């Protein structure tokens, strides 16, 4: 009895796969495009390594990134201390490794907040148009009238420089990008015949926005997000470098670079390695973002 059922199940599964073949093909095709875009692959590898380092940080180093060891100040790179030690005798390698957790956390929260707010504002503005659009876009313009870092700086300084406020400040500055993008997309999508067709079927505005406009508008937002993840790190590090971001002894990469500034000439390693870490990770995100954009490009796809 159960055997028969098992066979039936299997048949059903096969049928399931059979019917979804085009979807699977589609994914395969995406995978193929991704594989053939070398730079995107390099980017992906960098980002995976970055994630891996952040997750497995404690396994990668035996030094505490915060504990001071004044006996071992300013040691050059060696097998003991791969990236040397800083003015408090802290292992720079360990600080860079743990720093990845800080950066990842910043990226993660900033992305959620800014993409969330930005997409919502953008899609509402674009879909409804008219006065709603006018008001929302003028507000966006006001935020865009500031050079980003300057606005973020003023924010963190005002809220009090620490990690949480850095995140709030960057999100506060960053959402405008997605708002503009999502709006432009929503306007484009809204006027497409297929949206009209859905409206003609009798669908509600909320349904159209959530199930049809949003999914179509989101892919450029995702590409932009990937490209901007690099910028998020750069902004966070910039704030950290100026002393307006994460505060010591948190091992934020920008702050570490700043720590090493006074020792630049003799103890180059303190600044060089965390800076290099920033550059590599940002590069990874940029390569990945470029790759995703190419892959999603309909000209390539069709």
């Amino acid at each position, binding site marked *: 009895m159960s055997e028969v059922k098992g066979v039936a199940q299997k048949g059903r599964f096969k049928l399931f796969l059979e019917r979804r073949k085009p979807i699977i093909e589609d994914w395969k095709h995406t995978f193929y495009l991704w594989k053939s875009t070398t730079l995107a692959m390099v980017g992906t590898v960098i980002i995976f390594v970055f994630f891996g380092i952040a997750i497995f940080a404690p396994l990668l180093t035996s030094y505490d990134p915060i504990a001071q060891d004044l006996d071992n100040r300013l040691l050059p790179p060696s097998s003991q201390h791969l990236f040397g030690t800083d003015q408090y005798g802290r292992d720079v390698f360990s600080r860079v490794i743990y720093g990845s957790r800080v950066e990842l956390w910043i990226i993660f929260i900033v992305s959620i907040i800014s993409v969330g707010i930005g997409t919502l504002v953008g899609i509402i503005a674009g879909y409804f148009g008219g006065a709603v659009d006018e008001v929302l876009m*003028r*507000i966006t*313009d*006001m*935020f865009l*009238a*500031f*050079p*980003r*870092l*300057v*606005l973020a*700086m*003023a*924010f963190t*300084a*005002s*809220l*009090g420089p620490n990690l949480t406020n850095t995140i709030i400040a960057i999100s506060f500055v960053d959402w405008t990008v997605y708002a503009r993008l999502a709006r432009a997309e929503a306007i484009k999508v809204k006027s497409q015949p297929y949206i009209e067709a859905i409206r003609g079927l009798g669908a509600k505005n909320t349904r159209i926005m959530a199930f049809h406009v949003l999914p179509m508008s989101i892919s450029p937002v995702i590409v932009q997000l990937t490209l901007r993840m*690099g910028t998020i790190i*750069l902004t966070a*590090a*910039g704030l950290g*470098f*100026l*002393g*307006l971001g994460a505060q010591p002894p948190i091992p934020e990469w*920008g702050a570490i*670079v*700043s720590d090493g*500034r006074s020792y*630049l*000439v003799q103890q*180059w390693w303190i*600044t*060089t390695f965390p*800076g*290099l870490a*920033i*550059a*590599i990770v*940002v*590069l990874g995100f*940029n*390569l990945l973002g*470029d790759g995703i954009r190419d892959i999603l490009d309909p000209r390539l796809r069709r």
Partner: protein
Amino acid sequence: MKLGTYIVKRLFLMIIVMFGVATIVFFITHVIPADPVGAILGGNAPIELVDQMRHQLGLDKSIPLQFINYMEGIVHGDFGVSLKTNRSVLKDIIDFFPATIELAIVSMIFATIVGVVLGILSAVYRNKVIDHFSRVFSILGVSMPVFWLGLLLLLLFYYRLGWLPGGGRNSLFIFPPHITGLVLLDSVIAGDWTSFWDGLRHIILPAFVLGYASAASIARIMRASMLDVLRQDFIRTAKSKGLSKRVVIYRHAVKNALIPVVTIIGLSFGSLLSGAVLTETIFSWPGLGRYIVNALLVLDYPAVTGGTLFIAFIYSLANLIVDISYAVLDPRMRV
């Protein structure tokens, strides 16, 4: 005529936006901080001193009243007195601003020329050596943290090689003529070539560091835009007329390809001003960026307010100019 209307309309919009900008700055400097005076004076300051300071900053009034005073001040160009320098903030800005604008302009020129040229070459010689070089140049440019690049170049060219000066706008015993406040321009006007040469040596590193990211993004957009234009129908028409490749590219393609790039140049100006904050800090460049950072670090609110507002104003002005040149470049925009 139509262009005139367009400019008037954009100016009008800019005024609205500036009002919003001022509101945001007010919010940041007057509403968010729970206890600015406490932050400035520390927790143990005597109560009279705290009160005196609250009064001096106008914090003893209600928020709406503060807002009205604040807006009145802005309209009259009065940002108050800096707590740190004890001078009028506006005077400070006028002193510090030329250094920033000089740095920004030089970087912008560098970034535009390098970006546009690389972008065109990259698109025309697609997948050739120059294209690969330009793409690597671009991707590195947008990935490298400005402050880190600055420090490394300083280490190399100043400390190790000694080819270029380490910071500031002039050497110790060189006194450039003061006309507009822009060292290079003033030296040229006064014909003081020693001072010009000195100023140039000082500005090379900071301008390169500041302009690199912009050059990179301009090159990227220019390349993409060129490739896009070269695919258009009218390029095919130009070729079918028997025009040579050079004429097709430089007369027909480049001007069209520049149109979207103009926007990027405008946006770059914003990231340039952002970057200036970091670059000025690294190269001890006596500009507005460094002024704001120092003010922020000691919570000198009048200075922060004035500096931030001023930067936002300059940025908006730059964007206005970009939008107008956009309309001049693209006849389709003038409808």
